[in-house]
């Protein structure tokens, strides 16, 4: 019982981080909850060593990322195919980007955060996944290319297109 109470405390400390990672990568809250559950079941198996580990957060983040990518891997082939396809209208994002200080001055923070999450969900998977890994999970282009087994130039192109699409979506939604 004491162990369970301790684990509940442990979960409480990390569950938002684990869920965020999975939700942003999948773009689907229900799938993210399933993945988060799996992550914490693995954490429970390893709880004797994790409970005192200073790197428990990093361990959980890595497991959450890997399990999510595993979950998405069934679509990997299709994703690669789409990633290979080029659309002329995607090559040059014709958007006027605001200067950094003017980002979303008019709407309240909570609303802005929700719009950003919606913008992420609106991205196609082959753009969202590398973009989230780069901007939210702080992985390098090289690490992402290796992890996803996609060539480095393609990863850079997908992330750039993802940024452009996201900015376009946010601008249209009035968040930029």
């Amino acid at each position, binding site marked *: 019982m004491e162990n369970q109470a301790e684990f509940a405390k442990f979960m409480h400390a990390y569950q*938002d981080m684990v*869920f965020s990672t999975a939700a942003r990568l999948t773009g689907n809250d229900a799938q993210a909850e399933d993945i*988060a*559950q799996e992550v914490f079941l693995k954490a429970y198996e390893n709880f004797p060593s994790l409970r005192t580990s200073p790197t428990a957060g990093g361990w959980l983040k890595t497991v959450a990322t*890997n399990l999510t990518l595993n979950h998405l891997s069934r679509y990997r082939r299709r994703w690669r195919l789409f990633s290979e396809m080029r659309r002329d209208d995607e090559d040059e994002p014709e958007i006027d980007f605001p200067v*950094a200080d003017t980002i979303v001055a008019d709407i309240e923070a909570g609303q802005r955060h929700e719009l950003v999450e919606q913008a992420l969900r609106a991205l196609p998977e082959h753009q969202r996944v590398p973009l989230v890994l780069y901007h939210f999970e702080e992985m390098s282009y090289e690490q992402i290319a290796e*992890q996803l087994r996609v060539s480095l130039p393609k990863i850079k192109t997908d992330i*750039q297109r993802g940024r452009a699409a996201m*900015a376009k979506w946010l601008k249209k939604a009035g968040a930029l």
Partner: protein
Amino acid sequence: MNELEQLIERVARAQPTRRAPASLQGRVFAQIAAQPWWRRGFSHWPVPARAAFLVASLGFIKLALAGFVSVVDFVHSSDVAGVTALHRTGEAVSTTVSLAEMVFHAIPAAWLYAGAAVGFTLYAVLFGLGTFAYRTLYVQR
């Protein structure tokens, strides 16, 4: 870093962690409760099960050693023409086993138990590392 990258980086930095659903913790604990003990980690097994597992492991080791000694004895005692080389090998192995037996009896029992515990722990650690490496480096990709 271009302007677009800077913009998205700022947006990402400003984004707070999302709140996990309230149902998550309940789901995890329900799943833990539903798991049979043998599917949990060894450290979560009931004490009698852990003890039985260790005893069984030691039994298997003893059985394997006894089997090996029986084979050596058989080779040593058999008098088949044309198997001199085999006899010599058998004798060498038998001598080695006898020596090992003498050393084994000379070692205090506590040392043997400690050695077995260390061996088992090392096995468990290597098994864990192997599993971790497999899952991290191969399966997750």
